[in-house]
């Protein structure tokens, strides 16, 4: 088969259309460059009635929202999941990693929680504090101007609290707390645990004339038809196409490798079209990888040539290493004070209106890094699973559980909205021996070798999860509640979820000043090849107790500014 080559010479080819790729597309298109955006999945617009899941009722589907075809329920807007047919990944024996992929325009930004936290000064230099991991080659002061610009371009609600490691920003005003959140605030104060308004990227106020304002349906995981939440397609790619930029969108196009010439410089990418299963090539002066931390590492490792026998940008042997996800552990409680509720619409924004940033000093604890607390609860829309075990809480009142008939109606109403849950999301220490690599025995349906994961938690993360659990129990007791389920034991890793489960995997192409110990420099340019950049979360050296998206956006903007400048100076 002959590989079909496109005659167009792009200024830049961007692989992936999520937060990192979307931002690169916006910045490069605004600069007037001719770019190609190559996305493995289909085109997606949350305003398209055919694709829309927002404002649907459960009874519109025969399975009432069950998660048969979409892991987070059938109204979740992500196409993809933990397993994708024909596109496997493997795990080394005795290790765990679950990999969530979403192949569509906008990628995983179409369904994420929109929790948008800046990293603080300590997050870039944590080795200075505890001697673990590695410092970033840049600091908060380098990224701050870009965080500011991201806040203003995309919009994030929150409040300036003057916290040293949870920096202030340019926030839209937050929504008022819901009832269960007021209960949480009150309970947390008893233990001196701070609670502040959430920081999330939904528009509680107009930010420009192209995007609508939140109408409080609580369904951001379904992606917003008026573009009032941040999704990379609606907030970055579409504006890039409108800004006079020259953007060619290649959807259903799976990138196999970055192509290189005799000098070892990148010449473009080769991809397989899902539509005809044929291989094509695109040519560009610059290649920007933003396919997600693990997918970009996979592309580099699969881009072997005479000049790059160990994979592209991998002379250091660091590609794939230092993979780390946020830690996660959860607990729920039954709160009698939230029984017998008057029913009103409290959908609010999708997710929490308040949260707890990390509040302790690790010097006094048996784990080195912090976590923040997320909270959920309320009178949500019934979906598949609603009404299961409708009166288990009767046991707290010495009443029988189970039964049938009219009494079940009363039980369901009595307990509606009386459960509240916590999720801890913490920082794991990045380690060289947690990594992904190419599995030489397995290819996907496009003939591309797949990733094999090697990942184990350490006691740092387990001890952190144990602390989360005891905090959650204390909070639930403070609210006069009953903790549900047994306290997770050591054998259960204290409820610590498998790596990958929080979907914040980062670090596979980490940045640094030393080409022997890092893959990209501080502008996210490969040390080995100066016309290849990475703008997803691969370059993260560590990720703090924060979610990674806001930092992906800020760093992608910063790297993309650098690309424009370097192209102007004809350095690349």
């Amino acid at each position: 088969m002959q590989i079909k080559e496109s005659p167009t010479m792009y200024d830049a080819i961007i692989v992936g259309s999520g937060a990192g790729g979307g931002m690169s597309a916006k910045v490069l298109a605004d600069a007037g460059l001719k770019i190609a955006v190559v996305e493995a999945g289909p085109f997606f617009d949350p305003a398209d009635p055919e694709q829309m899941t927002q404002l649907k009722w459960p009874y519109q589907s025969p399975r009432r929202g069950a998660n048969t075809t979409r892991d987070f329920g059938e109204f979740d807007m992500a196409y993809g999941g933990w397993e994708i047919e024909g596109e496997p990944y493997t795990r080394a024996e005795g290790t765990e990693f679950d990999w969530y992929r979403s192949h569509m325009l906008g990628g995983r930004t179409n369904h994420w929680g929109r929790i948008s936290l800046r990293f603080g000064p300590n997050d870039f230099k944590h080795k200075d504090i505890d001697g673990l991991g590695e410092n970033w080659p840049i600091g908060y002061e380098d990224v701050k101007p870009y965080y500011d610009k991201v806040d203003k371009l995309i919009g994030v609600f929150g409040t300036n609290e003057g916290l040293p490691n949870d920096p202030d920003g340019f926030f839209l005003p937050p929504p008022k707390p819901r009832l269960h959140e007021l209960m949480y605030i009150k309970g947390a104060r008893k233990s001196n645990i701070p609670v502040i308004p959430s920081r999330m990227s939904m528009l509680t106020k107009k930010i420009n004339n192209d995007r609508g304002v939140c109408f409080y349906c609580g369904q951001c995981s379904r992606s917003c038809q008026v573009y009032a939440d941040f999704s990379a397609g609606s907030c970055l790619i579409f504006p890039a196409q409108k800004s006079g930029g020259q953007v060619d969108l290649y959807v259903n196009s799976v990138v196999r490798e970055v192509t290189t010439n005799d000098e070892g410089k990148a010449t473009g990418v080769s991809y397989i079209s899902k539509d005809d299963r044929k291989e094509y090539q695109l040519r560009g002066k610059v290649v920007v990888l933003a396919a997600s931390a693990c997918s970009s590492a996979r592309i580099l490792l699969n881009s072997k040539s005479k000049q790059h026998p160990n994979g592209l940008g991998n002379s250091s042997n660091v590609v794939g290493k230092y993979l780390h996800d946020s830690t996660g552990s959860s607990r729920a409680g039954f709160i009698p004070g939230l029984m017998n509720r008057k029913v009103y619409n409290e959908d609010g924004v999708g997710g929490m209106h308040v949260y707890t940033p990390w509040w302790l000093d690790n010097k006094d604890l048996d784990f080195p890094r912090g976590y923040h607390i997320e909270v959920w609860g309320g009178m949500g829309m019934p979906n598949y699973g609603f009404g299961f075990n409708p009166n288990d809480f009767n046991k707290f009142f010495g009443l029988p559980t189970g039964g049938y008939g009219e009494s079940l109606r009363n039980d369901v109403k009595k307990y509606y909205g009386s459960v509240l849950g916590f999720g801890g999301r913490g920082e794991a220490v990045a380690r060289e021996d947690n990594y992904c690599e190419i599995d030489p025995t397995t290819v996907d349906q496009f003939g591309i070798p797949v990733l094999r994961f090697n990942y184990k938690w350490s006691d740092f993360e387990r001890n952190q999860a144990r602390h989360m659990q005891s905090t959650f129990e204390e909070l639930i007791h403070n609210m006069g509640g009953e903790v549900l389920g047994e306290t997770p034991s050591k054998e259960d890793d204290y409820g610590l979820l498998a790596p990958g489960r929080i979907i914040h995997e980062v670090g596979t192409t980490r940045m640094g000043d030393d080409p022997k110990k890092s893959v990209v420099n501080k502008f996210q340019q490969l040390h080995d090849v100066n016309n290849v950049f990475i703008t997803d979360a691969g370059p993260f050296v560590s990720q703090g107790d924060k979610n990674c998206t806001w930092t992906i956006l800020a760093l992608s903007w910063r790297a993309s500014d650098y690309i424009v400048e370097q192209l102007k100076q004809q350095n690349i």
Partner: protein
Amino acid sequence: MDRRKSIKSILLGTVAGGLVVHGCKPEAASTEELAKVKSDSNLFGRTAEEKELIEKLNSEQFFNEHELGTIAVLSNLIMPPNDKFGGATDAGVQEFIEFMAKDVPKLQTNLRGGLMWLDHKSNTEFGTEFKSAAEEQQKQILDSIAFYDPEIPIDEHPLEIQFFSLMRNLTLTGYYTSKIGIEDLGYKGNMPNVWDGVPEDVLEQHGLAYDEEWLAKCVDQSKRGIIAEWDDEGNLLT
């Protein structure tokens, strides 16, 4: 009521903190935006593959007529109609259970086996199949399998208790995800609105209150339609 008016009444009806829809410009613009929000009731965002799967499952039949009849009787005992709302069968629960048995095949043996257990029990005790037994006889059987100790994991209970638990779960979830069930529950959301805090009487009922300091930081919903501008320190000016 036309759509614009209904949106306006939704706005007025759900906003607790006294937001009134004036005719002033930014707010009117934002109200009009609410009215533009759409949802096509014939579509629910399925991909081509997902549509194909639903069509395939719909073209198959898992339960036979007798089993479906038994499910109808049983689900209506679990969630009977009352003077205000229909019951399980009115809410389409038997169609839902038929679909789920095909969609999640691991449910099949427990469901089908449990239905046979019911008939066997009813035949043994009353000389007739479950669905034809008198309601009092049916309830007598249910009383022996409908209650369980929630401290014991469900798969350690006898099969008939597991079966009934599954039936109760599917019946309730089918009912409360139906139009009737959502109305019965009173869920008020899934529509464009403006969240402006917990109603005063609810705060009182639960003994909670907003801090003035906290409220001062929150969105002023009368200015939601005005484009955000900040000073250099990040203070919102608009």
